[in-house]
């Protein structure tokens, strides 16, 4: 089956990201495909490239990146939700005159329309919210 996840909880603030990652591992282990993880609401903080959690905690941002590297899962971030929360890739940072960027590939800033397309295109869209 083709899955996508919608993550709406900030990393470390809520269980949402932890549960979403465990769900992702379980569905992949059963031979399903995870097309995309879409980050919306406070979930956009999962794309913060500067996240530096203590070493005895799971590195959630790196875990998403591994999902992309090992399974080709796209990591899409709602651009409107991201910009107002200070999550900008290089292009947006330069467009807004900021001296640094906080989002980098494989995370991509994209529009909410992608979420609708995704939800209608996959067999299952599963939401993880706080």
């Amino acid at each position: 089956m083709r899955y996508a996840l919608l993550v709406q909880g900030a990393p470390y603030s809520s269980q949402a990201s932890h549960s979403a990652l465990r769900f992702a591992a379980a569905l992949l282990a059963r031979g399903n495909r995870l097309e995309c993880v879409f980050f919306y609401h406070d979930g956009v903080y999962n794309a913060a490239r500067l996240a530096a959690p203590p070493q005895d905690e799971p590195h959630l941002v790196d875990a998403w990146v591994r999902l992309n590297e090992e399974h080709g899962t796209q990591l899409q971030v709602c651009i409107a939700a991201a910009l107002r929360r200070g999550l900008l890739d290089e292009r947006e940072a330069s467009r807004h005159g900021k001296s640094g960027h906080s989002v980098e590939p494989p995370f991509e800033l994209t529009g909410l329309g992608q979420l609708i397309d995704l939800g209608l295109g996959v067999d299952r869209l599963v939401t993880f919210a706080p």
Partner: protein
Amino acid sequence: MQAETVLDGDVLVILRHPPHGSSWLREGLDAALVAAAFGQAVSLLFQGDGVLALLQGQGPGPLGQKGTSATLDMLAMYDIESLFLDATSLARLGLSTDSLQLPVSPLEPPSIAALIAGHRLVLTF
């Protein structure tokens, strides 16, 4: 006799948060507007504290957040006219449909189940 309520559509957005105090409601409505702009038949279900979004006379006020009242007024422009609320939630808050800013159809639990089953995509905020 009332016309039979249509419970089918492409995208159902369920709004369960009150209009002030967080951006849940606004970001949920944004998803609904985008889906409608992409040509999908969108329905909204106000449930739990989400029904408070429908109360008349709300402004953005001094809270610094934009509020959602103006967005609700724009729904018709986006052809989002399938508006439902959870009758149980409304009753629990001691409210009636008379105090709402939009015409919204109250649904009992079995119809809510049918509404969810009747949509290809359900987004919950």
